[in-house]
């Protein structure tokens, strides 16, 4: 009995195997046929090269599109912007899929470096401009110069040249700046109207106006003064920039020299101290978000406003308008710029495909307008497209003319900024006099600059 069952089973196995083989063959033929019909367009050209040489004799020469999945690292706030653009890209490029790994802003470095050190780099990544040099020297990102030359992309004509320079090292292009920013002064219209005031033109006027507005639980100005190490050089740094100051400069020999122990810096520190009189007490400890909320709720007359604020305070109770950063004693306005760049991870297994994505995003002005949404676009032509062709961006375009980086980033930029911040903080907490702070900061910051 058992034997007969085995016999039957054995026979069935053979039959089953035969049927399965036939089915598989039929499936291959059908799929191959379909592929032959679609594949002619070759929309995934450039990424199918890795699919191997089958050299088969009977199958049609249909390209076997192997889907490549790219990993991109970005900060959480930028993820929706990239999702929108990637959807367009993937619709046009069947063989490439992009997965976004979004992390909070302060974890961007941790994630990028950990992945790179673990030998599992991101194919595409967003890099804060202050970290670009460290990423290049640390081998976290790779040069894209060869791709740019191969595809004859003329970035010089597409992107503001000064911004493009920030992505170069030893005449090789590593990153494409995809957004930039600048900061202006937001004015609470109701508070100003009630007090019969207009937007201050100079920093001296700003203090006077602020004093007039500071009453009945409301304040002249609000900003998170210390919560982030970059606050004194970027957000509050606008007042230093408008005075024509920098906390270090690069001299004619290419050496970074601290420029702190001077009258401009002393006046800047003193101005910040004076500002505290027209600010809420918790300005020294509040987070950026708490500062924003206070302005959005209508409790403060003035606030430093970057283009990203449009998305962050959409439902604000306050009716506001924007003005140029009040001028310093020399009479001209000024502000600080920063921004983010896009790069290909060094060691990426899909660098070719990553470049295709990068090119797609950064060579079309309309696309540059889309990805520039969190700040301002880096392509002049992008300002002809929505939303940057709206009036509300005119003030930023105007302020950009007098904006600059707080200082040209050096390798240990974060350490240098942290040291500067230490003395700035001591002054604001009245733990050290302005005179003493600038003297000591000059020496300590220079020591760090000498190491870079």
């Amino acid at each position, binding site marked *: 009995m058992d034997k007969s069952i085995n016999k039957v089973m054995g026979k069935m196995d053979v039959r089953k195997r035969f049927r399965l083989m036939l089915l598989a063959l039929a499936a291959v033929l059908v799929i191959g046929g379909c592929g032959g019909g679609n594949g002619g367009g070759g929309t995934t050209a450039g990424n199918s090269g890795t699919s191997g040489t089958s050299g088969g004799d009977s199958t049609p020469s249909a390209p076997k599109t192997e889907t490549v999945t790219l990993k991109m690292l970005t900060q959480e706030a930028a993820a929706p912007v990239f999702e929108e653009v990637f959807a367009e890209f993937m619709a046009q490029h069947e063989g490439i899929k992009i997965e976004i790994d979004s992390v909070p802003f302060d974890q961007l*470095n*941790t994630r990028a*470096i950990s992945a790179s050190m673990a030998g599992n780099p991101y194919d595409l990544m967003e890099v804060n401009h202050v970290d670009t040099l*460290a*990423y290049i*020297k*640390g*081998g*976290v990102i790779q040069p894209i110069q060869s791709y740019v030359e191969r595809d004859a992309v003329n970035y010089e004509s597409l992107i503001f040249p000064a911004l493009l320079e920030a992505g170069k090292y030893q005449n090789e292009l590593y990153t494409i700046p995809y957004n930039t920013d600048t900061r202006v002064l937001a004015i609470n219209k109701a508070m100003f109207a009630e007090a019969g005031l207009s937007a201050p033109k100079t920093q001296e006027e700003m203090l006077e106006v602020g004093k007039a507005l500071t009453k009945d639980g409301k304040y002249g100005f609000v900003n998170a003064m*210390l*919560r*982030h*190490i970059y606050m004194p050089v970027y957000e509050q740094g606008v007042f230093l920039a408008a005075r024509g100051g920098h906390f270090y400069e690069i001299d004619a020999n290419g050496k970074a020299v601290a420029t702190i122990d001077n009258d401009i810096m002393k006046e800047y520190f003193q101005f910040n101290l004076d500002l505290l009189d027209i600010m*809420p*007490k*918790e300005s*020294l*400890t*509040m*987070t950026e978000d*708490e500062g924003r909320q206070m302005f959005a709720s209508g409790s403060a007359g003035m606030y430093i406003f970057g283009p990203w604020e449009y998305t962050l305070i959409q439902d604000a109770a306050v009716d506001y308008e924007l003005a140029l950063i009040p001028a310093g004693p020399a009479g001209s306005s000024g502000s600080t710029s920063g921004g983010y760049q896009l790069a290909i991870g060094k060691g990426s297994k899909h660098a070719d495909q990553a470049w295709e994505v990068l090119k797609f995003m950064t060579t079309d002005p309309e696309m540059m307008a889309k990805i520039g949404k969190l700040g301002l676009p880096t392509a002049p032509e992008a300002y002809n497209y929505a939303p940057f062709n709206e009036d509300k961006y005119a003030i930023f375009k105007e302020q950009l003319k007098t904006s600059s980086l707080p200082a040209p980033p050096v*390798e*240990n930029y*974060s*350490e240098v900024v*942290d040291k500067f911040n*230490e003395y700035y*903080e*001591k002054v604001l*907490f009245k*733990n050290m006099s302005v005179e003493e702070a600038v003297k000591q900061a000059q020496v300590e910051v220079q020591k760090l600059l000498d190491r870079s």
Partner: protein
Amino acid sequence: MNVKFKRMIAPSLFLLPGMLIIAVVIFYPFVRNLMYSFTDFSILRRDAGYVGFENYADILAEGVFANSLKATLVWSFANMFLLILFGVTMAFLLRAKLFGSSILYFLLLIPWIMPEVVTGYTWKFLLNYQSGVYYNLLKTFGLIPGDIDIFASKTGAMLAVVFANVWRSFPIIALTTYAKLKTLSADLVESAMIDGARRWHVFFYLELPHIASTLLSVSFLCFVWTYNAFGIIYVMTGGGPLKTTEILAVLLQKIAFDQFNFSKASAMSVLAILVLVCIVATIYLLLKQAAKRGMRNA
């Protein structure tokens, strides 16, 4: 040979996979970290070179580590004192079977299961200048001198982060101590009372020795967790004001991932571990002696 293999080698072979996993998961990262601390490895120098004790010398000369260590010790010991105080008190309250104590038992778990970062944000909002509910409560009772922002004051900021962490962590001490306390024979306590023992006699000579070993174990765990805590401080103060709350974990994060100086961060972490081991060993010996003395007296 066969007997020897069975008795000596075979058990070791069975242990080998487990030991290998432990070596890979626990020891390798530590050894690697130790190795980095003797190099100039950073994001800028992946092909790190041996620099001997240079990182350690720099750290000790700069004074940043010393300041941070001081903050860490203040933070850790303040936490431990309050954690044990509140934890043991709560354990006795739970044992007293007061009205609603079974609800309290479950409510106690909420702070413990809450993520550290959420705890940080919650307490930041509660203590915010003028707008915080607890800030206004403290002000009403005159517990805040003058018109100050708690987070701008060195003492205030440290107390704020300590209380937030105590709120989050004391349930674990309370619940484990309570579990141990329940195993103390009621007859023993009753007979002691009949023999004329007062309440504090029962506590010091019966209850405390009984819970000592459990309290010791859970306190060690809490000490290590507190010493290495990061989220609450990072969210509430970011290490400020004037680096008062910049404990070693916060400083290490900054040096490794803001300044990309991995070798320096590694050297700091080695020093931090050494300090932690010394403290834990000292406390362990002291408490063990104290427990022995207590048992003898009992």
